[in-house]
């Protein structure tokens, strides 16, 4: 995964970059918030790991800038911080941070948090696919899935979401289908 790292301390940046490469990722390293923001606009990475306190654009400001972009593809932001406590946590969350890693970071904890990030980014992609264009039959309204099989919409959604269906009749169909049918039955019964 492409990961943008914003860290103004050269030692931490070097170690973080090497650790990410060792975990199989492709880090892009930025020396400050401004450089990171430029790299973000150029590379559009799915994940950003940023230090909190940096000169110029700090970690929270970088996160706010990313959130203000309102990109279709979600960007997962992890804040590196030595700050602890409720105040720092809430400030980070309010800026749009997804997760925190305490400095100095533990490589195993970093690996675990990256797995969580990948899982959440994967779910985001699935949701976007559900929100996106679905091939639907003009006549019977069946939906074609990724295996080219056609399913009725209830089955399609039930397999992919927690949604379940209760069947009812909307006012329009009640007026155009149910009422004429009731009328017809009444006429036949006479």
């Amino acid at each position: 995964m492409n990961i943008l790292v914003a860290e103004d301390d050269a030692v931490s940046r070097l170690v973080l970059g090497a650790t990410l490469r060792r975990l199989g990722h492709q880090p892009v390293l930025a020396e400050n918030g401004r450089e990171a923001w430029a790299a973000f606009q150029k590379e559009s990475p799915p994940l950003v790991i940023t230090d909190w306190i940096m000169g110029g654009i700090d970690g929270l400001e970088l996160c706010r800038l990313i959130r203000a972009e309102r990109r279709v593809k979600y960007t997962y932001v992890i804040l590196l911080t030595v700050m602890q406590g409720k105040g720092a946590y809430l400030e980070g969350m309010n800026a749009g941070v997804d997760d925190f890693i305490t400095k100095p970071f533990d490589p195993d904890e970093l690996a675990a948090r990256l797995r969580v990030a990948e899982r959440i980014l994967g779910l985001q992609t699935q949701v976007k696919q559900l929100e996106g264009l679905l091939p639907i039959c003009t006549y019977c309204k069946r939906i074609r899935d990724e295996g080219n099989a056609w399913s009725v919409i209830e089955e399609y959604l039930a397999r992919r979401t927690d949604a379940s269906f209760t069947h009812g009749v909307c006012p329009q169909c009640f007026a155009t289908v149910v009422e004429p049918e009731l009328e017809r039955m009444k006429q036949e019964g006479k």
Partner: protein
Amino acid sequence: MSDSAGPMALDRAVLANLLAVAAGEDVSLLEELVGIFLADSTTYIAALREAADAGDRDRLKKAAHTLGGSSGTIGARGMADVCRQLEVLAGPTAPGGVAALIDRLEQEFGRVRGELETFLSRGAR
């Protein structure tokens, strides 16, 4: 009693992690890392003294924060602790005592430098 007779200035578990990370790199990451750390620490300690002399709390706080970060990353816990104390002292209600802390930081840095040089010459090669 000399400083070297006390507890180790570097956290061995952190160094082991750095060795493991460096093993996967093409370049000699550890040598590069130690080189940057030693040079940056010298620069930041000088910046701390200048900021303390000038009464520049913002600069003092920023330098202490950055040096604290790199010290923690390389396993120099004693240096990281002193930097944290400097960050607190550099806050709006600074009661003083900054100069004594910078002296302690410099002393601790001397121990760290010695251990890093030994680590590079023996352990990391």
